[in-house]
């Protein structure tokens, strides 16, 4: 018996399996997720995602705490639909930081050229980025409400019966996915105009603010122009959540009562709200594709 070992095996050819393009996209998605969350990166890269996630979960934890220790106040807690309004600022802050982090460094460091010189198409690359950003965004749009739903159900303060539970679960998932998809594509579209993260973040905030101010002015001034409210990109996602959680039918007529107080655009139909979300998302997707269709590789 000898202890001799060959340590330097030299360059070896690879004879194992080679996976297809889907595996490439999965790898880009995971790499982007790590980048966004600051994993395998210096500690300072982890600070902002952790803070924003904590802010998004804090109301849910407080609500669950109240349901556990102060049951008399359960009826005063915000609804699932209202939760979006409560945490929307932190959701917006999160996507403002996350989307530029996902997109800009690849262009700034020209790593995108390395991807496109491999088995990755432009559409596939963008799809991987959308999936990554949306997955992270779901952490703050879907996660806290799921936590609330499960915890309140365990405390006996949740929806009635299995049907009620499943219906609420479906609405939480639908609203979380729809709002995340819209904000993801919008933020990526704005980020596609620059390779600097800071410019992209500021640009997104300015874009969201300007559209909302313009929508507000047009909505307030314009008798007979209720559709102007649909231009408000800060109010539209919250309104969509309200509509998904079910708005009493009379709220979109002139016979409104206190049940309708949470609605931001009471005189706009639910179909118009959904249509506006689809149009904004599609428009942003077209802009994103247009910006990336001719990115140089070499």
């Amino acid at each position, binding site marked *: 018996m000898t202890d001799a070992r060959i340590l*330097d*095996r*030299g*360059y*070896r*050819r*690879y004879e*194992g*399996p*080679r*996976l*297809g*393009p889907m*595996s*490439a996209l999965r*790898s*880009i998605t995971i*790499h982007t997720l790590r980048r966004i969350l600051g994993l*395998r*990166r*210096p500690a300072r*890269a982890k600070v902002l995602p952790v803070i924003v996630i904590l802010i998004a979960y804090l109301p849910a934890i407080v609500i669950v705490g109240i349901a556990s220790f102060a049951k008399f106040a359960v009826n005063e807690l915000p609804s699932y639909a209202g939760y979006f309004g409560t945490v929307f600022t932190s959701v917006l802050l999160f996507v403002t930081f996350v989307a530029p982090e996902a997109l800009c*460094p*690849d262009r700034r*460091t*020209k*790593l995108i*050229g*390395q*991807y*496109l*010189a*491999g*088995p*990755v*198409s432009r559409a596939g690359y963008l799809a991987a980025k959308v999936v990554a950003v949306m997955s992270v965004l779901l952490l703050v749009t879907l996660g806290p409400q799921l936590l609330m739903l499960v915890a309140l159900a365990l405390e006996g303060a949740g929806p009635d019966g299995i049907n009620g539970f499943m219906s609420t679960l479906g609405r939480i998932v639908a609203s979380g996915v729809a709002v995340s998809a819209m904000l993801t594509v919008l933020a990526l579209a704005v980020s596609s105009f620059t390779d600097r993260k800071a410019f992209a973040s500021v640009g997104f905030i300015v874009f969201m603010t300007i559209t909302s101010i313009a929508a507000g002015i047009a909505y307030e001034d314009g008798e007979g122009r209720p559709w102007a409210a649909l231009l408000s990109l800060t109010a539209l996602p919250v309104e969509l959540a309200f509509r998904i959680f079910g708005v009493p039918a009379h709220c979109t007529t002139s016979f409104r009562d206190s049940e309708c107080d949470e609605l931001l655009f009471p005189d706009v139909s639910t179909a118009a709200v959904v249509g506006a979300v689809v149009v904004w998302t599609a428009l942003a997707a077209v802009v994103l594709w247009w910006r990336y269709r001719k990115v140089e*590789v*070499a």
Partner: protein
Amino acid sequence: MHLVETGGLTKRFGVRLALDSVDISVGRGVTGLLGANGAGKTTLLRLVLGLARPDSGTITVLGKDPHHDGASVRARIGWSAEHDTVPGDVRAQDLVRHLAEVHGLPARAALGRASDALNEVGLAEERFRPIGTMSTGQRQRVKLAMAIAHDPALVLLDEPTNGLDPMQRDDMLHLIRRIGTEFGLDVLVSSHLLGEVERICDSVIMLAEGRVVASGRLVDLRTGDDSLVVEVDGDAAPIVAALTAAGIVVEADGTSAFVAPVDDDGRVFDEVRDAVVAAGVGLRRMQRRTASLEDLFLAGVATATPEEAAE
């Protein structure tokens, strides 16, 4: 089978003709793609990668049409761009592993091969360092590791020595040569530096103004005329004078080197020997003249663009 084969390949950008009826074939070993800036090297590499569509002509890469089978062709190509393509805040091993996964390797295999590739390019100790903390030479090595980790069928290197100091450039050229010989990978390396290509390549393709001015194996291309190069330690003038007096046409080149046409009976060798002895200087080198790549390139450019050469 040739790794890359083109027939009448033409590519225009507006009115500018980037590639003009290019017919080349890239075989095994290390092949140099030579040409001045704007000669069409990068355009040709983009066509090889299937990232641009030719206006006319054909191109086959690894037996496939790269424009139609782009993803499967590019999955088997290792690419290293001219400019930096490495994010500074990612660890070298994470990036190389990620690129290997993107090229189709399963996660476990990609991790192992990333370590091996970084080891082979001399970055075993540095593989856990963020790339931003590395020197230019080390970052170029990371790019090289990214190009070879997935065991490609063809490695494309675009100006791999750009931005390197002379010592780093030497190391990089040595490494590229090793990739082509020890590792057994076939390499197409583009450069505008003739000396570099001459040192490491088995074959060359020379482009000028979008046209091929020379291509083939280096040993074949460099075969010169029947002249003899003689280099001595000391003053060559007495030797030149003696040979001229003996009726041999001598072309002096500097103070210590000259050439003379070799005749069939070998009389020139005897005359050179006698003249060197008579001059009392040491003989440093005596060999058949081979054409340098620079000679070939200039001759090729003169043939391809006679108007410009005349100027």
